[in-house]
């Protein structure tokens, strides 16, 4: 009982991990289709971005509407490497259309896997570091940060499209295999399972790292910044540095997620960088429950799985209504998302009913439900 009380969230995460770990076994025994496993792989990538977003939004109170940018930086990095594997280091068809005759310098690091990994870490680190440094130093905060991050993403999106000889514009990097080769078809199930476990391990590591982080003093300061930025300043902490560090960390998480995603997906386009997609990521965190790591994970899995199963045929239109409504209702009434409902709302409701029953036993006075603001 005591264990449960202390580690409710972790237990829940463990259950998810075990369930995920069982998937490939079910696949090999034919209970589950390989497409399901592949899709769950993508969901794990989404869960990783969601954890990153939750760290800055749920814990630090910075809402970024531009995490699609970092997701894409990672995904493009990985995609460029995979494209180079396909073309054996020669220039690609879109470079030719764009009039290039040799491989541009920016593609050179992606000829080798270590170079690619380095870039996947460095690119978001540098971009987010620069952005964060200036924005946080100048004390841009709250919605202003959100609007600026959104504009930045839009600018980056335009640049990616305009530089089509280097990035292939709207089409993005496509027609690529995963790092391990093809993932589809019966003879490639081994590849799929290996990659799936790699993604699972990455997810566990990132969860563990974040869990550790939010329980250190550093994490406590983040929460302090969220709840009272000026007080934290006055207590002698350099808020902008803390913000910058956590922003960079979450950018790297997003990039790692992007790199995993492109392996499962087999293509990456600038659409993943658009504002709409970036806000979709926020929706996962909001509905799952901000401010708890498990909430982000649950949200990412739940929304994507529902969308996967519900948005086909005539349901496609209704799904837009459902997700819109769900989001509005969550924001309006359930700040803590699903986790919040389970953790606070339901017990509160039970408690209210119990106390009302007790009260009604005593006298028949109705109690006011809504408190004045």
């Amino acid at each position: 009982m005591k264990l449960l009380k202390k580690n409710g969230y972790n237990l829940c995460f463990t259950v998810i991990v075990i369930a995920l770990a069982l998937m490939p076994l079910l696949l090999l025994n034919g209970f589950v289709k390989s497409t399901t496993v592949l899709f769950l792989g993508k969901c794990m990538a989404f869960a990783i971005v969601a954890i990153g977003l939750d760290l800055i939004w749920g814990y630090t109170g910075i809402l970024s509407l531009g995490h699609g940018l970092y997701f894409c930086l990672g995904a493009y990095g990985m995609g460029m490497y995979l494209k180079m594997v396909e073309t054996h280091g020669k220039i690609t068809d879109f470079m030719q259309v764009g009039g290039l005759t040799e491989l541009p310098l920016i593609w050179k690091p992606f000829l080798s896997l270590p170079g690619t990994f380095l870039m996947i870490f460095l690119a978001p680190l540098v971009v987010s570091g620069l952005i964060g440094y200036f924005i946080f130093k100048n004390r841009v905060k709250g919605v202003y940060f959100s609007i600026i991050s959104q504009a930045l993403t839009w600018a980056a999106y335009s640049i990616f499209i305009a530089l089509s000889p280097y990035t292939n514009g709207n089409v993005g990097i496509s027609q690529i295999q995963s790092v391990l080769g093809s993932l589809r078809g019966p003879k490639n199930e081994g590849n799929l399972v290996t990659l799936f476990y790699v993604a699972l391990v990455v997810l566990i590591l990132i969860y563990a790292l974040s869990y550790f982080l939010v329980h250190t003093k550093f994490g406590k300061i983040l929460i302090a910044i969220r709840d009272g930025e000026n007080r934290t300043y006055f207590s002698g902490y350099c808020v902008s540095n803390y913000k910058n560090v956590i922003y960079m960390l979450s950018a790297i998480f997003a990039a790692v997620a992007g790199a995993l995603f492109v392996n499962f997906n087999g293509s990456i386009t600038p659409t993943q960088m658009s504002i709409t997609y970036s806000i979709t990521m926020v929706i996962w965190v909001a509905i799952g429950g901000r401010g708890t790591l498990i909430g982000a994970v649950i949200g990412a899995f739940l929304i994507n799985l529902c969308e996967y199963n519900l948005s086909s045929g005539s349901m496609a239109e209704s799904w837009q209504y459902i997700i819109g409504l769900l989001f509005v209702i969550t924001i309006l009434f359930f700040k803590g998302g699903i986790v919040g409902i389970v953790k606070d709302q339901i017990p509160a409701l039970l408690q209210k009913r119990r106390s009302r029953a007790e009260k009604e036993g005593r006298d028949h006075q109705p109690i006011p439900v809504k408190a004045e603001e």
Partner: protein
Amino acid sequence: MKKRMRDLLTAVTCTTLALSMIGCGSSGTDKSADSGEDTVTVGLLHSLTGSMAISEGSIRDAEVLAIDEINADGGVLGKQIEYIEEDGASEPSTFATKAEKLLGEDEVATVFGCWTSSSRKAVKQIFEDYNSLLWYPVQYEGMESSKNIVYMGAAPNQQIVPAIEYLLDQGYTRFFLLGSDYVFPRTANMIINAQIDAVDGAEVVGEEYAAMDQTEFSSIISKIEAAQPDVIINTLNGTGNVSFFKQLADRNITSDDMMTMSFSIAEEEVQTIGADILKGNLVSWNYYETTDTEKNQEFVKAYKEKYGEDRVTSDLAEAAYDAVYMWKAACEKAGSFDTDAVREALDGLSIDAPEGTITVNGENQHISKPVRIGEVKEDGLIYEVSATDGPVEPDPYLTTYDWAVKAGVQPLE
């Protein structure tokens, strides 16, 4: 005690939630499309939501029309066609996810779908891995051929190249290339540049790209006015066309001052832009609603009956309609729904389509089809002003054109 209860409740509920979630993911397995005794399942993969829904709606409608007609007629190989529709949400990676779902989970016999080149390229690898067939109904930029895609629309030499030849014949010499910032316009313009370079006396006086969602064309129009072309080659996509032509009309520029030749304006776009603005301008396609064949009269009548008198047919809708019939013909020739058998049956297969007789070229899986240059008239329809003598053989890599080989437009491999 109370607090402990609460935590217990949290943990238990979260756990159930997590489990049910994963169950939700795997539940798809049970419903794998059992192709059963008397039905065959196909997939339709188009954007029903998002910005591309504007364009993809009509080709989806044409596909459903063809399926319904075939079903009423007794189906394919004695089986009724059932279709599973997935929403690509105008997002290439969603297209990829949904293609996987159709092929891996629903195990459909074949898929009709995609519109944009980015969505086609995003799913190409998946169709190759699963060895299934995608029927792609849109004219496109060429430079591609996959044995797992049947390209029902025009290759560049069946739309762009003849159109430029026609313009050169008519004595136009100064060309301005305007397109959306996208793979089709960029590749098309690369081809057009090569083609015009090879002709003495003709030149490209400007090349401009507008963002996909651009609605403000005033500075592009100023650039065009400054360059003084006598014809604009327009490869703008979708909504950009409407803004561009409206703003062109606001400047009092009509087809008499500056001719335009468009590759993405079909009857539906004419309807949205307005015939009074577009009249007199040229377009290039393989089919128009006014195309005079017996098959076309039936097609137009059936389409309007099903979807309303105010709807118009277009080249794209027609190609999508043909795709379903071509698949039916191939299955019947092969006597099975198996991808390899169907592909083998495709070589040299012809059907009588609204645009005329069309034949599959087995080598590159494109279609040989007639090319028609058309002019927009006041009634909002497009009328043929010039046409090729017969069907033109598809040549996606333009290897049979000397100027193209010389300019090196083909991919390197």
